[in-house]
């Protein structure tokens, strides 16, 4: 029994590891676990954030499409109002008359002399 007990007694750590100083294995393990947990949380947060942004982008894209459609509708209305058919229909409302014969003035110099 004593031998067994002796045999099972764990060796004490020498406390030295490659000359760097005393290193607590347990502390190292805890640090690694903490880092992993932080990493996982960070990853999940990032993915979640991306997914949220994705929905935001989708909403914004939907707004852009709506605005684009509205813009198209307004442009079509503007084109309608600018159409010659529309202008012609409004001619009488605007009291416009057809262009008559234009008179043209010559810009060439004409020599004149005073009559006596």
């Amino acid at each position, binding site marked *: 029994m004593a031998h067994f007990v002796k045999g099972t007694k764990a060796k004490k750590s020498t406390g030295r590891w490659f000359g760097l100083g005393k290193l607590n294995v347990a502390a190292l393990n805890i640090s690694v676990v903490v880092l992993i947990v932080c990493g996982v949380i960070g990853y999940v947060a990032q*993915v979640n954030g*991306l*997914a949220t*942004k*994705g*929905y935001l*982008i*989708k909403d914004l894209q939907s707004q852009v499409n709506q605005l684009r*459609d509205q813009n*198209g*509708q307004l*442009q*079509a209305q503007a*084109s*309608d109002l*600018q*159409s*010659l*058919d529309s202008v012609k229909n409004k001619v009488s409302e605007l009291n416009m008359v057809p*262009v008559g*014969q*234009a008179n*043209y003035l010559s810009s060439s110099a004409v020599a004149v002399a005073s009559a006596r």
Partner: protein
Amino acid sequence: MISLNKNNQQHFFWEKRIRLVSLVIFLFGLLIIFRLFYLSVYQHSFYEAIATNRQAVNENLLPERGSIYVREDGKLYPLVTNQQYFLVYAEPNKVESAKEVVDKLTPILNLSEEEWKGLLNRLAKKSDPYEPIMHKVTQNQVDQIKKLDLTGVGFVGETYRYYPEKNIGGHIFGFVTHSDQEVKGQYGLEGYFNKELSGQSGNIKSIKDALGALITIGPRTVESAQDGDNLVLTIDRKVQFTACEKLKFFYDYFEAQDASVIIMDPKTGAILAMCSFPDFDPSNYGQVDSINQFNNPAIFYDFEPGSVFKAFTMSAAIDTGAVSPDTTYDDTGEVKIGPYKIQNSDLKANGQQTMTQVLEKSLNTGAIFAADSIGKNKFVQYVKDFGFGQPTGITLETEVPGNISSLNKPGDIYYLTASFGQGVTVTPLQLVSAFGVIANQGKLLKPYIVSDIIKPDGTDIAAKPEVARQVIKPKTAALVTGMLTSVIKNGVAKKASVPGYYLAGKTGTAQIASSNGGYGKETNHTFIGFGPVTDPRFVILVKLGKPQGINYAADSVAPIFSQLAAFLLNYYQIPPDY
């Protein structure tokens, strides 16, 4: 010692149980691992297919079809563009009361009684998952339907062609058909430039969530759609509108079978206006009496041009030096060519006449004299050089070359008959293009209607005027211009004149070949002219097919030319010549 042995025995007893439980758990775990391996490795492709089917997105990205514009004062005005409409559909299996839905939709969608009945029957089928109700529904109508909050009624966006300018002619544009998700241009510019206007579809491959939205962090392959090119036309919107309006009036007034007007810039070949009747509405292309209405008469329907052709005969004769404007001949009223006798249209013998008088009085005998003076071979060469017998190459669908094959037949009768425009067929566009030779110092220009092609990235590819060839000498062109001016001033075409301006032109009253052989009593009336002769800004062709109640082009189409010329002279602010 004894208690120690008893403890050891108990310890070993529990150790065995624990080992047994561990073994069971281990085996269970092994089973799970094997099952996992089976599902995710062995049956990987099967489950991947199911997942892909549910999650994968593989859709085409549809490009926007290019628009067609005209340029005015540096701005682009759309003549053909795209507009968002909606397809209203129903899911009959979700509709609570079909009659209520149909009754509420009827006033908004303007359903007829027959449509009301048909829709009611379709929406009454409770097992039916989908029924389209109406295409091309406006935003305004959709907003009204949304207010009704009808269960089982939905909307899908659709894009259709939209034409802001009405009554401006459908033949130039053509139209667009929608079938099996394919959008295709037919006839006119839509047909000719279908590939450029269509653009290129793109593609997106990604994965979607349960709501159908794309997963941002998922894999994504996007090939962007490339929108279609935009076209800018040489057409002047106001000139086109005026030309179509005036032509429509006379087309109806004379009850003509068909009518065409073409206005071209003789210095560049740019088409300023092109209008024909019977016309069609491109946004309702299904509402035509005959599919033939889709063909543009200006480029598709060739006809015997009649006396307008004398201008080209005279140009050829003067250009070769065979005759001059003052060359005389003795007009006996008729010419015998073998067994055939050809007479003047007025059946008169006019005595000694000059070449100028041949055009002024439109004498068939004079045209024969001029053609005979240069001979068949030279005459045929000039006819070809003027562009007849071949397409002009304008970028519109369904242009025909006309038919001058009779000139290849042996004997003199065919080419001498052709000298006054009978026995050969030409299109209105060929005629106006050929007349442009006389207005443009003898140069034949290729007519064109698209001035710019604007790529989606903004690159502007501008068309340049193309000189096909020098047909006649500039001096010949000047002489013939003078003769044609006399036609309007002193000849049969006085009704084509505009006070204060020198305009050149020629009438043509052409007999129409009868199906029984020979010629019937019906005629085609044509007038082609240009002005002002000192610096031509326009060439105008007006044609009426089989006008009723009027005999001569001098009385039917010449006044239309005068009105259009007067408009253009005012529009371009061209001061009078005298």
